[in-house]
């Protein structure tokens, strides 16, 4: 790792080079690799939730199709744009740190934090609406859903079995396939005569868990960027040393990455 410039580089860094690194380059690359390993664990953390989403959606697509209409597509799209803009200001801030433009760095970090606050504000509006409507997870779900205009003449009622305690949904053999769902028959909620599908709370459990964990990451990112802002104002960063800004930026872009997938998966179901 010791190149011909190694010595002069270390001196130029004004004491930023820790003693266990040979060169500033080695220190910088090690820091970045460490950050990328952390980001990989973040991907695995969110990966578990994406897996839960995939399993729930593949076994009950009707719940996702029906319930996603309670999310405001416009607010979701605006929030996506807000996060993309914040990612841009962050990438620009890193550039300014690298070039030693201190004033621009402080301003761009402030803009990134402001956009993050804007994201959380819009998220709050969305959450509050769902809270008031009772569109929540598990037993807290108490939304008044649109009901069918006329009482459904339930043709596919479960055939009562001989023993009421043992409510088997499969019809007794004597009655043949009458009790079974006919293949190709459209579900009640799809025909327009039926009500909403059951267990809508499943969707909102997934929604609140995924956006909630993402929201916690936004808050963590805001704290991190505020620290960077304070350090940038003290003039700690410049061409010789900008690693903390760069790493905070990587974290912030990951928050954007997760949302890039969350937005179509939750808001744009078809």
């Amino acid at each position, binding site marked *: 790792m010791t190149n011909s410039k190694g010595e002069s*580089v270390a001196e130029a860094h004004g004491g930023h080079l820790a003693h266990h690194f040979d060169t500033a380059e080695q220190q910088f690359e090690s820091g*970045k690799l460490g950050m990328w390993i952390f980001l990989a664990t973040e991907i695995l953390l969110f990966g578990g939730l994406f897996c839960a989403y995939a399993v729930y959606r593949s076994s009950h697509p009707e719940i996702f199709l029906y319930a996603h209409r309670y999310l405001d597509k416009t607010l979701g799209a605006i929030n996506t744009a807000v996060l993309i803009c914040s990612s*841009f200001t*962050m*990438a620009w801030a890193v550039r300014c740190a*690298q*070039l030693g433009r201190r004033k621009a760095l402080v301003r761009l970090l402030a803009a990134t934090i402001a956009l993050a606050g804007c994201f959380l504000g819009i998220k709050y509006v969305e959450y509050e609406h769902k809270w008031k409507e009772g569109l929540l997870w598990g037993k807290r779900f108490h939304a008044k859903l649109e009901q069918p205009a006329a009482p459904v003449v339930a043709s596919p009622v479960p055939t009562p079995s001989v023993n009421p305690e043992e409510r088997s949904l499969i019809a007794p053999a004597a009655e043949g396939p009458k009790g079974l769902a006919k293949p190709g028959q459209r579900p009640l909620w799809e025909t327009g005569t039926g009500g909403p599908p059951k267990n809508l709370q499943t969707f909102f459990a997934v929604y609140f868990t995924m956006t909630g964990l993402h929201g916690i990451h936004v808050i963590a990112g805001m704290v991190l960027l505020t620290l960077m802002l304070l350090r940038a104002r003290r003039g700690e960063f410049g061409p010789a040393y900008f690693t903390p800004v760069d790493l905070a930026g990587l974290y912030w872009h990951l928050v954007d*990455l997760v949302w890039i997938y969350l937005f179509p998966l939750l808001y*744009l179901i078809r």
Partner: protein
Amino acid sequence: MAETTHAEARASDHPTVGHVVPFRVLATVWLALLALTVVTVEVAGVDIGNFNLGVAMAIATVKATLVLLYFMHMRYDRPMNAIVFVAALLFVALFVSIALLDTRAYKPDLIPGYAPGITR
């Protein structure tokens, strides 16, 4: 380190480590990301059956790749960082695809519109 870094190191204000992404590249990526967001919203309004999910995921992946390559400097970085990150993505893909293997093996609703398995 790459040639470019040494070239930049000679310039007065440029850092000795890392890569400075030109402003024009950052702005182009920003506009492309915004445009793709509009596209994904518009496409979601058109019914193309099962392709809707695929198209939405493809657009999201293009957006994510742009962020990774340019905003997160992956294009200019050492390959080790990308290897670590892509490995995590592969493990997530493995996780999701194995979890999804048998979902079609269950009858989703024995009675249309109902999910007795979860209700009780």
